[in-house]
């Protein structure tokens, strides 16, 4: 990235032990504002543990986290969220029976005062939801449309739009495309691109190399709790990334029997 820019979040030699299991054995990562940083790795590589450390769910056993240049230790996810680190989980925090606008503001409901009483400001919530969704390229039938009627990709977009609306500076996306079809994946990737252009740092977790290459600026590969290096866009081929993720040698052995289909 541009050398004059400072990283918004810096993770230095993060180690995380669960009892006798070493889930992370010294992982370092820097994320800059306005970039899409892809975090790749096979199942069990430590991706989830790593982002949970970044979002305050886990506290690192060793290592340091710098947020906007200052050392940070998040006690729980609320600290991370209020600092501006938002996570969009695989299991979305969306409720199908509730309307889009009720979902959008769930836990952060706007209120208007009528005399001594506080009421949910539905007009504001509806307007803000429609605006934010339009910015992401989704035209809702209405703000009272139930989330259950949206497709998987649209739900991801609602979740991302919500995080952006509430002032996320770092947006962590945990496998947002893993369960989606081709067109829906394209929509989500387009959304990631829009978010990045607003100057938000995106950490995109995936194990799909093609999805990563479509939007990523830099790629970090994790394997067995360690970083296998960070590559710039254009410096690495899909095959090399794939090999790195699988740990190189094993895949070579496999490829012979599968005829290069992996």
């Amino acid at each position: 990235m541009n050398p004059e820019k400072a990283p918004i979040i810096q993770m230095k030699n993060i180690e995380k032990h669960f009892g006798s299991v070493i889930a992370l054995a010294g992982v370092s990562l820097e994320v800059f504002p306005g970039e899409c940083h892809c975090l790749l790795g096979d199942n069990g590589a430590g991706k989830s543990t790593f982002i949970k450390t970044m979002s305050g769910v886990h506290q690192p056993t060793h290592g340091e986290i710098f947020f906007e240049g200052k050392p940070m230790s998040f006690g729980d996810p609320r600290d991370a969220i209020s600092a501006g680190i938002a996570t969009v989980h695989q299991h979305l925090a969306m409720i199908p029976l509730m309307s889009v606008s009720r979902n959008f503001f769930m836990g952060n409901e706007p209120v208007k005062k009528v005399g001594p009483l506080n009421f949910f400001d539905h007009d504001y919530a509806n307007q803000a939801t429609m605006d934010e969704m339009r910015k992401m390229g989704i035209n809702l039938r209405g703000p009272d449309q139930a989330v259950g009627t949206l497709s998987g990709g649209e739900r991801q977009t609602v979740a991302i739009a919500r995080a952006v609306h509430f002032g996320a500076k770092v947006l962590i996306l945990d496998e947002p495309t893993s369960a989606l079809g081709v067109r829906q994946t394209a929509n989500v990737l387009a959304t990631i691109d829009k978010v990045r252009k607003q100057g938000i740092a995106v950490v995109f977790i995936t194990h799909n190399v093609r999805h990563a290459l479509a939007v990523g600026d830099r790629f970090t590969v994790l394997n067995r709790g360690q970083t296998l290096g960070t590559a710039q866009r254009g410096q690495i081929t899909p095959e090399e990334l794939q090999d790195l993720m699988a740990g190189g040698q094993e895949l070579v052995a496999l490829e012979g029997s599968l005829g290069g289909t992996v």
Partner: protein
Amino acid sequence: MSNAPTKSAVDERIKSRSRFREAMIRPELGGIVGTVAVFTFFLLFAFDSGMFNSQGIMNWSTVSAQFMIIAVGACLLMIAGEFDLSVGSMIGFAGMLIAIFSVTLGWPVWMAILLTFAMCIAIGALNGYIVIRTGLPSFIVTLAFLFILRGFAIFLPQVIERKTIIGGIKDVAEGDWLAPIFGGKILTGLFQWMGDAGIIAVFERGSRKGQPVVDGIPMLIIWAIILVIFGHVLLTKTKFGNWIFAAGGDAEAARNSGVPVNKVKVLMFMFTAFCATVFAVCQVMEFGSAGADRGLLKEFEAIIAVVIGGALLTGGYGSVLGAALGALIFGVVQQGLFFAGVESSLFRVFLGLILLGAVILNTYIRRIITGER
């Protein structure tokens, strides 16, 4: 980006929906249809039976109001994703507490009422606390309290008074400041005027000659109206209402978004207990006595009213106004069959049928909302 697609941009993938279909998809639909059907039926077949004169209207209004009071609590709790099967036993237990405090122990009635409210709401909180702490289904936890509370409602008066009904509450409530808020009547002047003007029936002879047969609106009905309005506004117009929907829709997702799910659920258990106690106090003040068998099966009647009103048993969806209509249907049919001279046991048959119909309709509506097939 913000100026690219404007409001006029229509997504070709979104099928336009007719206004009719739009109107269909609301939780109150079943309740509205049922209310219209029930009133049409009784207007046609029981109009001359006295069901729609002042006494008749007061009769089914009072019964409906009773159902409404407990249905509001059950409705909000069900939307928050939980049940309370101890409502009926709570009614018997609360009534018995008031009788013991005020008649047996001779405490002032206002103190007996307030103490009973405090104890019952605390039991509601305990119900909720056990449910969220253990993660057990509220069905089982509150089923236990159904038996525990009913047991005490029978045991206490037998040990203390050697009987299962304690009377004499009317006498001790005389002149109390709090008792009329539950057992009194309002607008008595208006009803006297309507009687004098010949709009409503008056007694023709006897010591009350000239007084209207219906001499005011019982506080029970006022409580029902207040609770329905309160519940509706809380659910649809406040932040807390959004939390109720969220807690019942998907507790985990709600927690991830920062909704205090446990607090919401415990408060709803407490509110249900509050509603049950309001019911109990009104009933005790009206009858002047407390009986160990009061409130039997009320928990199921409340749940049925809520389901007729469009709430989903699985939580996350429903309407207080719908539940109120469900309670109205309940009361009108129960009393209407009596006016129409139909064997009253058929009421249960009707109840079962309407419950089945409502649940099937709700499942269908839920599919439309969530787009499931």
